[in-house]
């Protein structure tokens, strides 16, 4: 291995402190970080990068990758529902001194409380089906997971398409995620 290559290999595992108010989010983000081959460290431990769900801790001086927040001090800004691949890439990039901005994170902005027309609101069951669609599952697999008939799955998928104004499964997932981004209420 050349010197340059061994240096790369040595820097591949990064120490990442995960900051999130919600314990489920913290666990999920810690899993993403660990699965990408990094070491999850405690909030106060020495870390190469801080991954923050929303606001980073005040006065943080280490490079921060923030989800769902953009300001000019941040080294990295991704949307709240960034993929595992984006999170890993952003962590590596900011540890190398780069600035990372996801285009959809720049779409954030000071917006109005949006309320979907009640006829277009999804039911909890439709949200379950949507989560499965987002994982790329087939109707058959969804039926098995939710313990419902194939016919019922098709019914839910059609209803999702209608309510979200989508023609394909990918489009339905994208539109639902956009809705979630704009309409999640923190109370």
């Amino acid at each position: 291995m050349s010197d340059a290559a061994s240096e790369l290999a040595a820097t591949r595992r990064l120490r990442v402190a995960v900051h999130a108010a919600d314990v489920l989010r913290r666990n999920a983000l810690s899993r993403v970080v660990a699965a990408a081959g990094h070491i999850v460290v405690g909030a106060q431990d020495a870390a190469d990068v801080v991954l923050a769900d929303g606001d980073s801790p005040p006065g943080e001086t280490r490079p921060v990758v923030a989800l769902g927040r953009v300001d000019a001090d941040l080294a990295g800004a991704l949307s709240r529902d960034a993929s595992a691949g984006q999170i890993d890439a952003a962590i590596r990039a900011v540890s190398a001194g780069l600035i990372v901005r996801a285009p959809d994170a720049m779409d954030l902005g000071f917006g109005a409380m949006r309320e979907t027309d009640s006829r277009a609101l999804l039911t909890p069951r439709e949200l379950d089906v949507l989560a499965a669609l987002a994982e790329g599952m087939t109707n058959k697999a969804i039926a098995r997971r939710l313990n419902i008939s194939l016919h019922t799955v098709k019914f839910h998928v059609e209803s999702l398409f209608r309510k979200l104004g989508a023609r394909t499964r990918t489009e339905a997932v994208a539109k639902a995620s956009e809705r979630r981004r704009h309409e999640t209420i923190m109370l």
Partner: protein
Amino acid sequence: MTDQADLLTQFSNALATRAEAAKSAIVAVRLRHERHITGVVWRPDLVVASEQSLPQRDDFEVVAAGGSVVAAKMAGRDPATNIAVLRLAGSIASPSIAAGEARTGAVALAIGADGTGGASARLGLVNLAGAEWHSSRGGLIDRRIVLDVRLGRREEGGPVLDAAGAYLGMSTFGPRGQVIAIPTATIERIVPLLLKDGRIARGWLGVALQAVAVPDALRESADQSSGLMVMSVVENGPAAQAGILAGDIILSVDGTSTRRFRNIAKHFGSDSIGRKADVRLIRSGAVMTVQTTIAERHAA
């Protein structure tokens, strides 16, 4: 022909004069990575800027007209109205600004700081001047002012002026890069509160919510067609302590239906902190009521 040219020249000169005059009403708020945003000199020792673009820290530096650098401390920030106030270590001579009323179709001049003590200018129209609105973070904004103006990232937070040079509001970005203004009336209302307490106290349960349709089978017992599903619960927050779980669908708070969120927002003003609230919700097919104690929302 000569008359037209004169009019255009007059128009152009008037704009340039306004931009020149506005230079002393703005500062550049320095950020990392050689960047900055714009702030308005609200009083000789106070600067108002866009909360969403200011990092979470206490100490800042601003560049005033002519290029002098002044230290500033965060005096208060309110994410719900996107207003932050910085207190300057010294004072800056600034022109007094008259508040103006936005009118749809009127000319709007947006001023930004160039970072070295000068100004940049953008011209456009008030695309829409509408009624009051609620932000996604629960704040009341006195008027909806949408601008047909391009704005650079570093110009955010600068003053938006009308043709008479009156202050319509502070420029900022809405979703998808839309340029809007926070009306002067909102800034006048919020700044004194921020100077008093450093924040606008709001009630908090510690949940992220998304509107959902109530399943058909439960509509009758729930007595409403939609509610707010709990997507996540903040660890040790009031909702978590009351045993509220992700997946619960909140139907009402103290008898006020969650069908329209803005009605609920009124229940979580500064007077709500410490109050007990009855939360009616659906959990695994049954309607139940849980009592919570509203806490104070911490910074952002």
